[in-house]
C-alpha cells in the first residue's frame, strides 16, 4: 500500500478536475462523484494507517522533479510515518463528512458543481501537504490550501462580505507565508537540502544551532501563525465564516488551520533546536488561547463564537507543541477536528432551519431539532473538556505538557481558558436550544444526508478519548517525535481542569438558563471590558489603519512619484530637446545678410583661435 499512497490525494483532484471540466451539465451528480472519490481516499488512508501500525517506522518515496546547474535538486516525494498516516485519516474522514453533509446543505445552490470541485481541491491540497517529504512541496501544497480556502470562502462572490473575507484570508496568510518562504530560503542556503528527513539529520549533527536555529524556527513559524490563526495573524479566521457553513467545518477542523499545527509537528526537530523559539511559540499559543476565548464570550453570531473558539483551541495546540508536547498537540488537533467539525455542522443545521446566524433570534430549538441538539451537546461537552468526552483527554495532555515543561504561567493560562471555554460554549448552547423560541417559525430537523455525518462525528467526539494512550505510542514512532516525555500520573491537573469546566458551565447556567444573574446587568457593570471584547480588542481596526494609512498612502505617493518625477524627467528631456530645436531653428531665418555676417564672424574667430593657440605666434606676441 505504501508505494500507492499517491492515489489518496490523486482521487480527489481527479474528481475535482472531472467535475470542473464537465461544468453545469453534471451539477446534480457533482457531489456524489466527489464524495465517492473521497470515500475511496478514506478507505485507502485507513488501509495505509493499518500498514503503518503493523510496521511502524518512516518511509520515503521520491521522484526527481527539478534539477539545475549550481547543485539544485528538488525531489517530489512522500514521507509516510505515523504522523502523516494519522493526518491522512483525519483529513479524508472530516472531508467526507463535510461532503456528504453538503449534499443536503448545498442542494439548492446553482453553483453546486463548482462548490464540490473546490471542496475536493481543498482536500487534495491538504493531503498533498500532509504527504510532502520536503519543504518546497510542503510550501507548494501550503499555498494551494490557501488558494482553496480563498475560493471557498469567496464562494458566494456576489456578497461583498464574502469577497472581502476571501481576500483577507489569502492576504493575511500570505503575510505569514512570506516569513515561511524566507525561512525555507535560509534553510536551503545553510543546510543545502529541503528534505525533511535530511534536515532532521542535519539538526542532529549540530549544523543548526544558536541564533540561526532560532531565526529559522521563527521564520517557519510565521507560516504556521498565518494558517493556524495565531495572534496577531488571526484576523482572517472569524471573517472566513462568510463561506458556506460546511466549508467552515472543513477549514476549522481538518484542512486550513490544521496545516500550521501539522507543519510545526512535521518540522519539530527544527523547532526543538532552539530553546528561544520553543518559548516564543508556546507563549504565542498561550496568548492566543486566552485572547480568543475572551472574545468568544461576547459574540452574538453562532459561527463567530465557534470561530473564536477555534482560534483559542489552536492556541492550545501551539502552546503544547511549544512546550515539547508533540503528541499532546497532535492529539488535541485530532479530537478538535472531530468536535469542531461537529459543532460547525450542527450550527449549519441550525442556520439551515432558522435562516439566521444571530443566537438571540434562535432559542428553544431543542424541541424541534432533537438530533441537532443532542450532537451539539456532545460536541459542547467535548469542547469544554468534560469527562469522558474526547476533549477532556486531549486538553488534559495539553495542560500536562505545560506542567512538564515547567511553565506554570502557561498552565494557569490554560486552566483559565478552560473556564472561559466552558462558559462561552454553554452560553451559546443555552441561548440557542433552551428557553422559548424567539420566532413563531417552526424549525425542522435536517434531512438524513446532513444528520448521518453529524452522528458519525459525535461518536468520535464522545469516544476518541479512549484512544489517548495508543495514539501517543503510535505517534512516537514518527519522524521528529521527541522521546516519550516523562509520564504524568497525577490527579491534580485533570481535577483542576474538570473544576474549571464545571465552573464555566455553572456560570453559563446561572446567567443564561436560570437567569439568576441578569446578563444585561453584567454587561452594564463591565461596559468598558464588554465593549473592548465586543470589538475584538480593535485589532481589525488597527490593521485597517495600517493598510489604509500606511500601505496605500505609500503606494499612491510612489505612483505620483512615478508619473510626475520619473516620467516627468522623461517628458522634461523631450521638452528640452524641443526647446533646443526651437531655439536653434531661429538661426535659420533665410536672410542672406545674417548668414554672411555669421560666416565672416566665424572665420574671424577660427583664425584668432588658431593663431592664439600657435606657440610661435604666442612667443611673437610676447
Amino acid at each position, binding site marked *: 500500500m505504501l508505494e500507492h499512497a499517491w492515489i489518496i490525494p490523486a482521487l480527489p483532484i481527479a474528481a475535482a478536475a472531472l467535475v470542473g471540466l464537465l461544468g453545469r451539465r453534471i451539477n446534480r451528480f457533482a457531489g456524489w462523484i466527489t464524495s465517492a472519490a473521497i470515500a475511496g481516499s478514506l478507505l485507502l488512508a485507513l488501509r495505509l494507517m493499518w500498514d503503518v501500525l503493523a510496521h511502524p517506522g518512516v518511509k520515503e518515496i521520491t521522484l526527481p522533479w527539478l*534539477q539545475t*546547474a549550481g547543485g539544485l535538486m528538488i525531489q517530489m516525494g512522500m514521507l509516510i510515518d505515523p504522523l502523516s498516516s494519522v493526518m491522512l485519516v483525519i483529513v479524508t474522514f472530516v472531508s467526507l463528512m463535510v461532503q456528504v453533509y453538503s449534499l443536503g446543505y448545498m442542494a439548492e445552490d446553482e453553483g453546486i458543481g463548482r462548490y464540490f470541485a473546490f471542496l475536493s481541491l481543498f482536500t487534495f491540497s491538504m493531503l498533498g501537504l500532509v504527504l510532502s517529504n520536503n519543504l518546497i512541496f510542503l510550501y507548494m501544497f501550503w499555498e494551494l490550501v490557501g488558494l482553496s480556502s480563498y475560493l471557498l470562502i469567496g464562494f458566494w462572490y*456576489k456578497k*461583498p462580505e464574502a469577497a472581502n473575507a476571501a*481576500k483577507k484570508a489569502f*492576504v493575511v496568510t500570505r503575510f505569514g507565508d512570506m516569513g515561511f518562504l524566507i525561512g525555507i530560503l535560509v534553510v536551503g542556503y545553510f543546510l543545502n537540502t529541503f528534505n525533511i528527513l535530511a534536515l532532521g539529520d542535519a539538526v542532529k549533527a549540530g549544523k543548526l544551532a544558536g541564533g540561526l536555529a532560532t531565526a529559522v524556527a521563527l521564520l517557519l513559524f510565521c507560516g504556521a501563525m498565518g494558517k493556524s490563526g495565531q495572534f496577531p495573524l488571526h484576523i482572517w479566521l472569524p471573517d472566513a465564516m462568510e463561506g458556506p457553513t460546511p466549508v467552515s467545518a472543513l477549514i476549522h477542523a481538518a484542512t486550513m488551520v490544521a496545516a500550521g499545527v501539522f507543519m510545526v509537528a512535521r518540522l519539530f526537530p527544527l523547532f526543538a533546536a532552539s530553546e528561544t523559539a520553543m518559548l516564543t511559540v508556546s507563549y504565542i499559543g498561550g496568548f492566543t488561547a486566552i485572547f480568543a476565548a475572551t472574545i468568544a464570550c461576547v459574540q452574538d453570531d453562532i459561527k463567530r463564537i465557534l470561530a473564536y473558539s477555534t482560534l483559542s483551541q489552536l492556541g492550545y495546540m501551539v502552546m503544547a507543541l511549544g512546550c515539547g508536547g508533540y503528541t499532546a498537540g497532535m492529539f488535541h488537533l485530532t479530537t478538535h477536528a472531530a468536535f469542531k467539525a461537529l459543532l460547525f455542522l450542527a450550527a449549519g443545521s441550525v442556520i439551515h432551519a432558522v435562516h439566521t446566524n444571530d443566537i438571540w433570534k434562535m432559542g428553544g430549538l431543542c424541541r424541534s431539532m432533537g438530533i441537532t441538539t443532542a450532537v451539539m451537546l456532545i460536541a459542547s461537552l467535548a469542547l469544554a473538556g468534560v469527562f469522558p468526552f474526547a476533549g477532556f483527554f486531549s486538553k488534559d495532555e495539553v495542560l500536562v505538557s505545560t506542567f512538564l515543561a515547567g511553565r506554570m504561567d502557561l498552565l494557569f493560562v490554560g486552566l483559565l481558558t478552560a473556564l472561559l471555554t466552558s462558559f462561552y460554549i454553554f452560553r451559546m448552547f443555552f441561548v440557542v436550544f433552551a428557553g422559548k423560541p424567539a420566532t413563531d417559525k417552526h424549525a425542522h430537523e435536517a434531512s438524513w444526508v446532513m444528520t448521518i455525518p453529524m452522528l458519525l462525528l459525535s461518536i468520535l467526539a464522545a469516544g476518541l478519548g479512549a484512544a489517548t494512550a495508543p495514539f501517543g505510542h503510535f505517534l512516537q514512532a514518527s519522524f521528529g517525535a521527541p522521546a516519550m516525555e516523562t509520564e504524568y500520573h497525577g490527579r491534580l491537573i485533570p481535577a483542576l481542569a474538570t473544576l474549571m469546566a464545571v465552573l464555566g458551565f455553572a456560570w453559563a447556567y446561572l446567567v443564561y438558563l436560570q437567569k439568576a444573574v441578569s446578563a444585561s446587568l453584567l454587561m452594564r457593570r463591565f461596559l468598558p471590558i464588554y465593549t473592548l471584547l465586543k470589538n475584538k480588542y480593535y485589532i481589525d481596526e488597527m490593521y485597517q489603519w495600517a493598510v489604509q494609512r500606511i500601505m496605500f498612502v505609500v503606494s499612491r505617493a510612489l505612483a505620483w512619484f512615478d508619473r510626475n518625477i*520619473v516620467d516627468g524627467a*522623461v517628458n522634461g528631456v523631450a521638452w528640452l530637446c524641443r526647446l533646443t530645436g526651437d531655439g536653434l531653428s531661429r538661426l535659420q531665418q533665410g536672410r542672406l545678410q545674417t548668414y554672411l555676417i555669421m560666416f565672416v564672424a566665424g572665420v574671424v574667430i577660427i583664425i584668432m583661435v588658431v593663431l592664439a593657440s600657435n606657440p610661435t605666434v604666442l612667443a611673437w606676441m610676447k
Partner: protein
Amino acid sequence: MSIPYLSIISATPLVAAIIIMLLPRERVTWPRWVALAGAAFSLILSITVVAAYKLAAGGYQFLETHSLLPSLGIQYALGADGMALAMVLLTGIIIFAGVLASWDVKERPQEFFALLLILVSGVFYVFAARDLFLFFLGYELAVLPMYLLIGIWGTGKREYAAMKLTLYLMLGSALMLVGILAMYFAGGAQSFHLDHLRHVQYSRGFQITFFPILFLGFGTLAGFWPFHTWSPDGHASAPTAVSMLHAGVLMKLGAFGIIRIGVEMLPIGAQVWVPYLALFTLVNIVYGSLVAMAQTDLKYVIAYSSVSHMGIVLLGICTLNPIALNGAVMQMFSHGIMTGLFFALVGMVYGRTHTRVIPDMGGLASRMPFLSMAFVVGGLVSLGLPGFSGFVAELLVFLGAFRVYPLLSAVAVTGILFTAIYVLRVVQKMFFGPDKPAFDHVGDANWVEKSCLAILMLVLLGVGIYPSWLVNLINSSIGPLTQMLEVVR
C-alpha cells in the same frame, strides 16, 4: 543539407505578411486566416525544434551560415541553444494567441496583420541570430512596426504613446549599437559573428566601460527602473495583440540581450557591475508592485506588474548564479505567457464593458464565467501560486539570489505579498460583488477567444506542474555560461 528550421520559422511570418498585402482588399476575413496559418506554421516548427534539440550535446544547434557582406564581416548566421529555443517557443505561442486575440480587428485588417507579422519575424531573428549585425537588424525590424501599430490601431493618447515608446526603444538601440560596434572594432573589425567575438579577449577596462552601456540599452527594453515609463503609456494605448507581443516577447528580448551579449561577451564587466545593478532591480520588484496597487486603469496595473515581474528576471540575471539565471529565463518564459494572457483578457473584457477603469466594473463573474476564470488563473500565476509556471521561476530566482544577496532577496520576497494584494483587489473589484445593471447584456468568450486563452493557460499549468522539460532546456545554456563565469572570476 539539413532543413534550415530557424530560417523557416523566422521568415514564415514575413512571407505571410507579404501574402496578406497581396490579397484582394474586399476580402476582409482573409488576412486573419493567412496570419493564423503563418503563426501556426511557425509555432509548430518552434515546437519541433524544441523537441529536436539534442539536450545531451547542448550548445548551438540548427546552425546556418551564409555570407552577407564579406567586406564588413557580416553573415547571415543563425543558431539556437536551449535558452534561445525557449524564447523562440515563447514567441511562437504568443503570436499564435495574438492572432486569435485580434480575430475581430475591423479597421484595416490587412495592414494590421501584415505589420504584426513583420514585427514577429524581427523578434524570431533576434532570438536566432548568431551574428550581431543580424541581431540588430532583427531588433529594428521589430521596433518600427510597433510605432505604426500603436499610432494607427491604438486607443487614448496613442500618438504620444507611440512616439514615446519608439523614441525610448531607439534610445535603447542606440546604446546597444554603441556597445555592438565597440565590440566589433575591439575584435579587429573582422566579423560580427558571436563565435568570433566570444574569443576576443576584451580588456578589463573595455568590459567595465561597455557592460553598463549594453545593460542600459537592453535594460530599457526590459523595463529596468528608472527607464520603464514607456511601458505603462505604451501598453495602455496599444491594441491587444501588440500589448501581448510587446510585454510578452519584446521585454524578454531586452533580458535575453543582457544575458547573450552583456554577460556572455563581457563577463568581467558583468561581475563588476551586477552588485550595484541588483539594487535597482529590487526597486523594480517592490516599487513596481506598490505602484501597481495605486492604479485604477486595468492596463496600467498590468503594465506596472510587468515592471515588477521583469525586476525578478533582472534580479536573477544580476546574481550571475546558475540557479537564479535558470529562474530568470524561466520567468521570462512564464511572464511572457502570463502577460500575454492578461493583455488578451483586458482586450476581451474591454470589448464587452467598454471601460478599463477598475472601479467602474464589478459583478462580472456571473456574466462572463470563462473570462473571469481565466483572469483568476492569470492573477494566480502573477502572485506566484504553486502549480503554475510563475512559482517555479520565482522560486529559482529567490533560491539562487539568496546565495548571493541574502538581505536583498529577503526584501524582494515582500514583492510577492504586494502582488497578492493588488491582484486580488483587482479580481474582487472586477468580477465579484453584486451584478451591475450596466453589464446585463455582456456575454462570455466565444470559441476563438476561449481557444486563445486556453492555450496560454495550459502552457502556464504544464510548466508549473512539470517544469523539468523547460528547465533542462534552459539549463543546457545556463550551465556552460556559469562555468565560463567561474573561470573568468
